[in-house]
């Protein structure tokens, strides 16, 4: 077990990769064996993630150097700076990895019947596993260039998966928009990495953070990195590609894309807190994040009320919910460097924002899955054509209600516990933020009620006489996420103490992040 944990970080990335390249070979022999391989490998990865999380909460930041003679040897003899590919896993990365492992497992199980009638399934699972590896890589890497590589792995496989159902025209359009936006954003990330490398000859985030000066070129690099990750996360006004891509993908992939969006958000936070950290002009950058958050919350939800396509409607809600996280963490960033304010409300605001990431990662994929279940059974995403489906799809309706209550922040569900943390702490920074948050929450409930009414309520419609409950694997996929929601609902303080506060502290404590790389010279 101890050995397994020494190599835990890389195994979590490498096992999905290994499984990804095994799936086409196994899939030629037997489809059943391939499905079992996918689910078993993702379950094992989820187990590893939770074991590593426990290990990190006991032993602190996990550092792993690839190809060295020992995993902790970040700076070999004869070198003064860290070389080689280095993974650095702290509380924040671990939180992201935990939710990514759960959602990817649920999505894989959901896919088993959701895409059962499509062609080229082996490729679907290969790409899905590559996307999982890319996501974990983004969360675990301690190196800017690897961040770029894993970002591209996740984007390319994501785009291919969005366009997976090639028989529809809109999937191709959504996939194309996604890949164009991703390619340009990633190239700008690479450009910024080049700017940083030109000045410091370093790529490692920890080592770079130690010497960074915040010169003019650094500011340009910061803006490029920040906006590139912002557009990848999908914040207003850079959100335009987001509903186009998310509404056409297979529902299981949409659920996973939400988490890749969170991973890009994580990368933006990592850049702001761990790379620039104390050198940063914190209030200005904090306010940039807050403005993006405010716009996203409001424009996202008002556009969502307007929508008639069920997946598109949920995508706009995803944008609106992302706004809460940016506001929470943005307020934390704005008071970074001011220890008093940080202790009074900054840390709580960040905890709220990060807690909302966790909650959103549970209920939004669940809602996308229910939307996918509706599409699977009715063959349309258009809410105007739906009605009376609760008579036939009882489980889907129940799971939809759980998700709806959670996203609207109805007590006692988990959405409320993170929103109240954000409201109470952000109120002391600027009251307008809290007021917007509450208005947005009301509009969220209103629009989800509308969608629930038009899809599930009413008399049974004659055109949906043949609709029945979705297959078991789809129910299981959704139930995994619903179980997550119930768990967080019942034990909020356990989750906050065990996962959220370590994550917030990991972001605030830049020195710890640097020491783990440069201080650990044997």
């Amino acid at each position, binding site marked *: 077990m101890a050995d397994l944990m020494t190599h835990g970080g890389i195994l979590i990335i490498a096992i999905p990769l290994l499984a990804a390249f095994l799936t086409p070979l196994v899939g030629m022999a037997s489809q059943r064996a391939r499905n079992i391989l996918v689910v078993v490998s993702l379950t094992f990865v989820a187990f590893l993630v939770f074991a590593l999380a426990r290990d990190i909460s006991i032993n602190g930041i996990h550092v792993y150097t690839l190809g060295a003679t020992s995993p902790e040897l970040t700076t070999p003899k004869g070198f003064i700076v860290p070389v080689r590919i280095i993974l650095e896993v702290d509380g924040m990365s671990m939180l992201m990895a935990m939710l990514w492992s759960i959602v990817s497992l649920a999505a894989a199980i959901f896919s088993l019947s959701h895409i059962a009638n499509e062609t080229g399934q082996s490729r679907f699972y290969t790409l899905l596993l590559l996307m999982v590896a890319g996501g974990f890589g983004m969360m675990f890497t301690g190196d800017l260039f690897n961040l770029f590589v894993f970002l591209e792995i996740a984007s390319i496989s994501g785009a291919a998966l969005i366009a997976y159902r090639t028989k529809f025209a809109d999937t191709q359009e959504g996939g*194309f*928009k996604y890949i*164009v*936006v991703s390619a*340009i*954003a990633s190239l700008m990330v690479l450009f910024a990495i080049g700017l940083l490398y030109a000045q410091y000859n370093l790529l490692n985030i920890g080592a770079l953070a130690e010497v960074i000066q*915040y010169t*003019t070129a650094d*500011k*340009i690099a*910061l*803006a*490029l990195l*920040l*906006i*590139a990750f912002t*557009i990848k996360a999908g914040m207003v*006004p*850079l959100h*335009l*590609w987001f509903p*186009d891509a998310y509404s056409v993908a297979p529902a299981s992939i949409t659920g996973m894309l939400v988490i890749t969006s969170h991973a890009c958000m994580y990368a933006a936070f990592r850049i702001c807190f761990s790379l620039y950290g104390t050198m940063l*002009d914190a209030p*200005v*950058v904090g306010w*940039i994040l807050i403005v993006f958050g405010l716009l996203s919350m409001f*424009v996202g939800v*008002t*556009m969502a*009320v*307007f929508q*008639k396509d069920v997946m598109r409607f949920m995508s706009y809600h995803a944008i609106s919910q992302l706004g809460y996280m940016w506001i929470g963490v943005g307020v934390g960033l704005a008071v970074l460097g001011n220890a008093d304010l940080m202790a009074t*409300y900054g840390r709580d605001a960040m905890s*709220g924002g990060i807690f909302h990431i966790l909650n959103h990662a549970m209920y939004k994929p669940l809602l996308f899955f229910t939307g996918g279940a509706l599409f699977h059974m009715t063959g349309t995403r258009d*809410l*105007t054509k739906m*009605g*009376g489906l609760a008579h036939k799809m009882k489980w889907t309706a129940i799971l939809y209600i759980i998700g709806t209550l959670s996203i609207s922040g109805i*007590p*006692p569900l988990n959405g*409320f*516990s993170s929103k*109240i*943390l954000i409201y*109470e702490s952000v109120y002391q920074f600027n009251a307008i933020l809290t007021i917007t948050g509450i208005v947005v929450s009301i509009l969220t409930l*209103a629009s989800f009620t*509308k*969608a629930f*009414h*038009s899809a599930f309520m*009413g*008399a049974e*419609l*004659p*055109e949906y006489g043949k609709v029945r409950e979705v297959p078991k694997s789809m129910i299981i996929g959704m139930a995994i996420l619903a179980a997550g929601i119930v768990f967080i609902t*019942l*034990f*909020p*303080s*356990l989750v906050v103490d065990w996962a959220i506060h370590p994550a917030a502290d990991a972001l605030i404590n830049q020195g710890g992040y640097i020491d783990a790389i440069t201080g650990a010279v044997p």
Partner: protein
Amino acid sequence: MTAILESGYAFWNPIIWIIVFIVVGIIVYFFRRQGQEEYKKDTDQTRIFLCGEEVPEAGERHIRVGNIYWGFFETLKEYYNQVLRVHTGIINDYILWFVAATALSVIILLVAGLG
């Protein structure tokens, strides 16, 4: 293993809420029990009554999504016109927004550094 979440100003306990919901549920169930149970199924007693008019078909009866919150959209018509103009759906515009946002934030960061 306590379920209470302290946020510094208030505390938050889902158990209390769940107990409240269970109590309300029991009360609602109690009122529901007061209703008559010996109605005749599949007669006019269980049909929809619409002032004696003929009841429309299921498809006609269902309020579709386009008709919900009509007043809300009517009130915010100006806002929606403005916002929808931005959502062109053309990929070139998406990149234009990206470039504009990058340029703006570069300017903001540089100007903030001067002061």
